[in-house]
């Protein structure tokens, strides 16, 4: 292969990699205020349809990394590309459109207490201006899939921890995001419920959504052969 052909193939290969990777981090660093760097030189890709655990000791920066992935935090240095766009060059008004492609399950669920389970799960579709008649059956089906088919009209304060977790997961999934971020999704549930939730994420991944689960739970990670992203002292090691 001559030198020119080699560069064309390399460029094409790089472009293909960028398109395949939903998210690309390159030498990303982050420090709060004038403090030490919480995250240092993170370089990784989140490929399409991939499944990975993000783990590490408390204070290692898992939630900070999830916030970076969810566009709610800007890096102090480095490059982040999401859906093939450099986030530093994206205007603030475009963020909602990008967030719609990412589903997030917060550690504290963040369900709205005055809305029923059904209304909480339907919220992402409602804020996109969709008419209720167009999504009602989808929401009902998803709620049945996560085992909340009988809890449609219940307000979150009445739901158990596991039910809240499943409602939060359903809300993150309802608009079929390309990537799902879950922060300690099994932190508030017993082992059988944790297993059920993990199966839910695996099933979702089989349907084509990339999944990142931030967790401390070693037993949960041992149940699945999946990529592990381990954060320690601000650095990231990846075990495929």
């Amino acid at each position, binding site marked *: 292969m001559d030198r020119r052909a080699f560069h064309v193939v390399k460029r094409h290969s790089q472009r293909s990699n960028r398109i395949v990777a939903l998210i690309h981090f390159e030498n990303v660093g982050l420090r*709060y205020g004038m403090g030490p760097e919480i995250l240092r030189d993170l370089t990784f890709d989140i490929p399409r349809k991939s499944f990975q655990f993000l783990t590490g000791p408390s204070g290692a920066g898992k939630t900070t990394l999830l*916030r970076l992935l969810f566009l709610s935090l*800007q890096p102090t240095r480095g490059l982040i590309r999401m859906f093939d766009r450099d986030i530093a060059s994206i205007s603030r008004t475009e963020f909602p*459109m990008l967030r719609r492609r990412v589903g997030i399950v917060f550690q504290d669920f963040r369900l709205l207490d005055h809305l029923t389970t059904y209304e909480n799960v339907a919220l992402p579709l409602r804020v996109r201006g969709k008419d209720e008649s167009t999504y009602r059956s989808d929401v*009902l089906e998803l709620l049945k899939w996560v085992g909340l088919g009988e809890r449609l*009209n219940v307000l979150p304060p009445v739901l158990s921890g596991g039910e809240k977790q499943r409602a939060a997961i359903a809300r993150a999934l309802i608009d079929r995001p390309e990537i799902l971020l879950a922060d300690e999704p099994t932190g508030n549930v017993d082992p059988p419920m944790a297993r059920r939730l993990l199966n839910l994420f695996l099933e979702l991944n089989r349907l084509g959504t990339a999944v990142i689960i931030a967790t401390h739970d070693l037993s949960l990670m041992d149940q699945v052969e999946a990529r592990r992203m381990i954060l320690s002292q601000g650095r990231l090691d990846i075990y495929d």
Partner: protein
Amino acid sequence: MTRKAPTETQPKRPEMRVRPTGPIVPPVNVSGNALMLVIAIMAFLACLTLGAVSMVRATAQSWQSQISREITIQIKPEENLDMDNTLANARDIAMTFAGTKSAEIVDRAATARLLEPWLGPGLNLDDLPVPRLIVITIDETAPPDFGAMRASLSESIPQAILDDHRTWVDRLIAMAQTTALIGTGVLVLVFSAMVLTVIFATRGALSGNRHIVEVLHFVGAETNFVASEFQKHFLKISFKGSAAGGALAALFFFIANMWQRRSMATPESDQATALFGAFQMGYTGYLGIFATMIIIGVLTTLTARFTVMRTIYEIDLIRSDPARTDGQPD
């Protein structure tokens, strides 16, 4: 083709019904009720002040207009003076001047009534040297030449004194203008207080809903969508509050007007009418209340919009900037 009958052992469960979708912003909460109450009180005070100021202005204008519409000729009694003839003569002289509309001699009975508070009832005017009056109504727009009238009267009737109320009119104009100015000042103060109270109360009520703004933002809602949801909610609250306050103010004026009408010709009512004027609301009063409601509605809506937009701006630009924060626990 045969259809299998449903077995009784496996009854079909009824499909769960979903309640009608509730509003994204909770319709009732403590901060919302408190805001509604604050708006109702401020609207009541603002409408009351508006009504009171317009009433005082109208009364001041009516004093001024009534007193400048009339002039008085006073005939001093003297021995051997034929008072009735002199009165008629003075009236005739006054009526020859252009700008006079009518002239009325204050008769003995009316004069006695005028003096009743000082000299008591049953006064016999023949026993006392009491001056008599002629009240002349003039055209306010083209008043007669008071100097010429005064000269003509004093030439024919030396006992006649013409009083054109100029001193009183000047004082009343100054008083009416001062009263109207004070009223306008009070109105400006009350409206400023209302504006600030409504803005701070709306911001306070919104701070209780901050988590809703955050969740909507993180599920991909655009800023305009979130702002419009809150605007709708706060517009409803402000209209309910201001309608209640405005209706109460209108009711206050209605009751005061009813009382005034029922107790007409009593000393209390006369005194109140003389001081404050008639407690009645014309269409301008209702327009004022409506305008106050609109002002409060616009203020509340704009405050809600700006506060929501600021919250989202804060989430996007300030809280997302690690240089401006001290870190969040993992």
